[in-house]
């Protein structure tokens, strides 16, 4: 089942009243959406608020979503208009106007050119998470590190990874899972600490 099919399944379940299915979509897309919105909204708390509002609007409009576009494309459009409405309501303009999108509705990654607009607390938490994940990846056995990197950073399918690593697909499946579990084990204490924070 492709990524788009999974989203479709989750949307259909949410349309039938299964709110937890929508929670899974929130969990999946919240950071990608917020990265997009950070092109329009400067303050980190505002980004969080607009992201939340975009998901609420998406939920309310879910009955009209018919799957003619990918869910995330539809969601991103809602997010962008939510951000524009937010800025308009607050008498502000987007702090960056040069957005360029690819076919997935995502902007080009220009994060290195963005000003550092995060609060110290937010920035610290972001750095801690990124640092923990990267350190955990570095500590992985090579075959796990290669598998998870090819999957998450290069977007290769299991079949392609199996070809690159010259091993069965089942081995790829297992290596990626074990890599994720190893990283998650190092991440959990940090996430538990962060649970009571706003970010």
């Amino acid at each position, binding site marked *: 089942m492709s990524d788009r099919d999974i989203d479709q399944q989750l949307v259909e379940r949410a349309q039938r*009243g299964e709110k937890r299915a929508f929670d899974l979509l929130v969990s999946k897309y919240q950071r990608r959406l*917020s990265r997009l919105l950070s092109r329009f909204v400067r303050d980190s708390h505002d980004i969080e608020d607009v992201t939340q509002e975009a998901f609420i609007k998406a939920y309310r409009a879910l009955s009209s*979503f*018919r799957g003619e576009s990918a869910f995330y494309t539809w969601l991103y459009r809602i997010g962008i208009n939510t951000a524009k409405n937010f800025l308009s309501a607050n008498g502000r303009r987007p702090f960056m106007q040069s957005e360029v*999108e690819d076919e997935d509705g995502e902007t080009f990654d220009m994060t290195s050119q963005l000003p550092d607009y995060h609060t110290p607390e937010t920035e610290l938490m*972001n750095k801690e*998470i990124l640092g923990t994940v990267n350190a955990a990846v570095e500590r992985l056995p090579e075959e796990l590190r290669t598998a998870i990197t090819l999957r*998450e950073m290069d977007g290769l*399918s*299991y079949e392609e990874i199996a070809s690159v690593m010259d091993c069965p697909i089942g081995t790829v499946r297992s290596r990626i899972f074990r890599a994720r579990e190893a990283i998650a084990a190092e991440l959990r204490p940090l996430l538990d600490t962060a649970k009571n924070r706003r970010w």
Partner: protein
Amino acid sequence: MKESVSSLMDGELGRSDAEQVLLSLKEDDALRTTWHEYHLIGDALRGNRLAALDVTRRVSARLATEPTVLAPRRWLPHTVRSHPRTAGALALAASVSFAAVVAWQSLGNGSTGAMGMMADRAVPVSAVHAVSDSEDPYFLAHQEMAAEQDIVKVSYGNGARR
């Protein structure tokens, strides 16, 4: 089951297995946490600087106060979506069928009950909405808001690479 979640989010599960995992995700809090963690790891590996952002609990709390969406809508298969004529034919057939049912109930029963009243007020309607290229799914979803808030259409549609 965690390994199945890992495969699911990579799009590497067959339909029946995927549906089984989705069902388990509905029931199992720990499995949903796994889903959340794995997606966070993916975003972090891809260098998303907003890795710490998490609105899941806030959105979930808001949704708890929202009316439940109970609008089952059969998704149009790709063959229908890509052939407006087929969709139009289906819409016409549905309209004719609906009108026929209303007329039969009205004439056949001669009823003054609820169905009779419906027949008195019946107007031709399209039970299936024909799809055309000119329709924007976003605006279909936000017509009310657009009207109320005077939102100007901004196209972020198909992207620069096309």
